């Protein structure tokens, strides 16, 4: 049996709810493809956890829009909000479907993973070598997004996944990073992780 979080109305701004639903749904898609690509069950489980969070947010958003609509004009203005929110919910369901492929042991063929990793240009996995200049640095100070258009979406450390790590997270040797971004940026990140590059470009 699934356990469901109890829902009570809370006055959360629609803007915050929408923003979080959009962020989470996109994060989930990338994490889910990564889980399938790298055949990682724990990561897939994390995606399923995030799905519960989106479901809860969707409830809150629906209640908030209901409370906000006082007349026909409000309803016309708000129906779009509710449609977009339900679309992000659908996207998160799709991500959960991907995760389920992994947790149900169906998985993808190793050859598929190998080719996929080569062809797919927006996701990458890299292990941080002890010689890498990234070791001991906080994510925030590295400024990977402005420098090379790359975002770290998860870190595997000591048998645990850290999902959507904070700016203050310090990179350690042996960490496995999952990143999304531009092809060039990801190539650079891999070189940095392997210790093949010893300087961050501006």
């Amino acid at each position, binding site marked *: 049996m699934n356990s469901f979080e109890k829902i009570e109305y809370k006055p959360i*701004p*629609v*803007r915050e709810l*929408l*923003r979080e639903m*959009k*962020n989470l749904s*996109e*994060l989930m*898609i990338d994490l889910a*493809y990564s889980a*399938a690509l790298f055949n990682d069950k724990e990561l897939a489980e994390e995606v399923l956890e995030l799905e519960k969070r989106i479901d809860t947010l969707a409830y809150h958003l629906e209640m908030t829009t209901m409370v906000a609509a006082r007349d026909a004009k409000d309803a*016309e*203005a*708000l*129906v*779009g*909000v509710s*449609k*977009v929110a*339900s*679309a*992000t919910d*659908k*996207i998160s*369901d*799709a991500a959960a*479907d*991907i995760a389920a*492929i992994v947790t149900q042991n*169906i*998985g*993808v*063929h*190793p*050859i*598929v993973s190998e*080719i*996929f990793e080569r*062809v*797919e240009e927006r996701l990458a996995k890299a292990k941080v070598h002890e010689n890498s200049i990234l070791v001991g640095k906080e994510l925030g100070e590295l*400024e990977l*997004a*402005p420098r*090379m*258009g*790359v*975002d770290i979406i998860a870190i595997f450390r000591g048998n645990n996944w850290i999902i959507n790590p904070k700016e203050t997270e310090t990179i350690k040797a042996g960490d496995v990073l999952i990143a999304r*971004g*531009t*092809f*060039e*940026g990801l190539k650079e990140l891999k070189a940095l992780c392997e210790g093949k590059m010893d300087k961050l470009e501006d």
Partner: protein
Amino acid sequence: MAEKTQKKFEEIVKRFVDLKDTSELMIDLAYSSLLLNSRELAEEVQKLEEYMDKLHTEFELLVLSSKFKKEEAKGFLGLIRLGVVTEKIADAAAQIAEVVLRGLEPHPVLKLAIEEAEETITYVQVAENSVLTNKTLKDARIPEETGMWILAIKRGDKCIRPKPDSKIQAGDILIASGYAEGEDDLKKLAAP
């Protein structure tokens, strides 16, 4: 493994990546259509959905006609299911774009939520004196310089899907997605 088999697999995975990329592009374009309240962009999303249907059918037929051995089949079941998921994502994108096509003025909170998201969508008009003017996308190196991806180019009433040899003209509106940090860099390039 026989070279022929490897080639077959390559083709299947490439088709899948095409499905995946198209579905993600649709999501970005759908949000862009809301942000700009643009019917052209919303229509582009609907067109891509038709393209997805065609792509998905071709992908499934290719997998089905590939004569997998029993022990390989399971690994490709996963891939078939992934294909179905991309369709779901495309449907969600179409649902977002539909809001615009129904003539509903997007609520201001939608705009704010899109602009404030981690992966933001932005648009900028290319100025006459921009270094981008008259350059092809390939030569403009926008992702390398700014970390932003060009999703579409709006030229008057037309919406152009970016290709490496597409030429940027003064007055074009570039619609791009990426991390918020790249937005300023893009604006500096396009409208100095």
